[in-house]
């Protein structure tokens, strides 16, 4: 019942991190990301310590390095973007070989690379150790707007349905129209986007009627997720260590 990428996102396991209540992990992830963002760019050493803090979580979660690095590759587009910064930034400049690179641009690159990598790493630990439905029920227990988590819940639940439907439509196009030029294919897909909307709308109507038939009265019942122990102490210690690093970095720069 979880989303299409759930199996790719989730790393099945029984580590101490897997067994933590989702809301604990969500709070820890946000606290860690906030510490990363608050750390001054030039405190290069601090990012080493933050990486170590993240590595502790990855290790405790028993996530294999290959899986972690593969998921980390999502940030490659940002990396390319970040690498352009030294070339468009303002002075002062530094000569590297025959290139004249902007010093603020270089720091900007470093800032994005370090912070995006650490933050993406933290969110990988969360999604690798927590099923999508559990993350949503975690947000519910953290009193996120119910409407928002309900919509997001429907979204991840029907993602697989909609994506596979899109796949079937593309197969149908290929079967009926044969090899299309890139341009014709694009035009067809754009028109299909409209058809897909109609299907999504009608599906939404059907789901709603089915829900009404089952006694829905405007509020989604709370997800019956297995109760996991809410242990805040470990998480507080972990996130606090990231904040100690961030505070030290702020004070020393």
């Amino acid at each position: 019942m979880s989303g299409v990428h759930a199996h790719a996102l989730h790393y099945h396991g029984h580590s101490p991190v897997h067994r933590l209540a989702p809301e604990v992990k969500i709070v820890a992830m946000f606290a860690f990301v906030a510490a990363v963002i608050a750390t001054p760019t030039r405190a290069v050493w601090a990012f080493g310590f933050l990486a170590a803090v993240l590595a502790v979580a990855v290790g405790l979660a028993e996530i294999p390095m290959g899986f972690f690095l593969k998921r980390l590759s999502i940030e490659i587009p940002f990396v390319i973007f970040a690498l352009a910064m030294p070339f468009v930034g303002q002075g002062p400049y530094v000569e590297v070989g025959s290139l004249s690179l902007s010093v603020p641009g270089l720091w900007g690159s470093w800032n994005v690379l370090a912070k995006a990598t650490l933050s993406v790493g933290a969110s990988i630990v969360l999604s690798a150790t927590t099923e999508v439905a559990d993350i949503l029920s975690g947000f519910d227990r953290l009193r996120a707007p119910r409407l928002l988590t309900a919509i997001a819940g429907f979204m991840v639940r029907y993602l697989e349905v909609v994506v596979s439907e899109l796949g079937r439509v593309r197969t149908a196009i290929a079967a009926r129209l044969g090899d299309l030029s890139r341009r014709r294919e694009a035009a067809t897909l754009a028109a299909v986007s409209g058809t897909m909307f109609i299907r999504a709308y009608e599906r939404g109507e059907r789901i709603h009627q089915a829900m009404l038939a089952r006694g829905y009265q405007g509020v989604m019942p709370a997800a019956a997720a297995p109760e996991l122990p809410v242990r805040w102490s470990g998480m507080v210690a972990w996130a606090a260590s990231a904040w100690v690093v961030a505070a030290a970095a702020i004070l020393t720069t």
Partner: protein
Amino acid sequence: MHVPDGFIDAATSVGTGVVAAGGLGVSLRKAARALRDFHVPLAGVTAALIFALQMLNFPVLPGVSGHLMGGALAAILLGPWMGAAVVSVVVIVQALFFADGGVSALGVNVTNIALVTAFVAWPVFRVVLKILPKTRLSAMAAAMASAFVSVLAGSFAFVLEYALGGVGGAPIGTVLGAMTGIHALIGIGEGLITATALGTVLAVRPDLVQGVADVELSGTDTVPTGRAVTTFVLTGLVVAIALVLFVAPFASPHPDGLETVAEETGFASAAQEHPIGGPLADYQVAGVESETVGTIVSGIIGTVIAFAIGLGVVAVSRRRARSA
């Protein structure tokens, strides 16, 4: 367009986060009132659809492909509140589950990709439709124009955030020029997809389109092809150019305006003195002030050049298709 972590400083991230939360809260409430409890599954399934459509790649230029962002399409089909809410959910899920777009940049991304696009696309679509004759082709031209303008508006929102708290010290003029140029091209693609998708929905279930709910459209019940497509594409582009040229001069004092507000409320000085702001904060502010005129001019020139390229590509590919 998904901004990663570390690109916008903490103060600006928090500020845009507040904007995003407020805008999303209002949107959810308005959408809920309009559709009662029906909106929950509908919003969820359309959010899934937009996520799925974003996975489709469309060729923009040889070697360059882009994908639908969907803010304008969602707003036209579902209305601005529901559209903004649905795209916001997509952006949030992408950040939290797929690590696409930074967690700390959630406010920035929700604001730029969902709120700004939906709330710009809706009035543009309505106004353009009001001016043009009430036909299906006009609705598609209005969709083309509104999608184009909404993408540009989203990129302007990013430039504004970058001016307030960007990291890396790229001159605002360069950022504005680059963002405008790239997003003018993306906007043409977005406009074409949005208009074509809307055309299909109008041909099959016009009753589902919130954007034309109170408008009687005439036109054939078939999906337009050939010359009709050229007509709506050109109309849409001309309207979009006119809008950009008309709106840009008014928008030009905008960064200064926000900057002034920020300074008056102490937000900017807090951002500068805060260790998080870093040593780059102050000269960026100075850069905006001195370069305002230049940046606006370069932005407009960039837009026009990108348009020319876009029109050329459309014309060439059309001629090639005809001769083939």
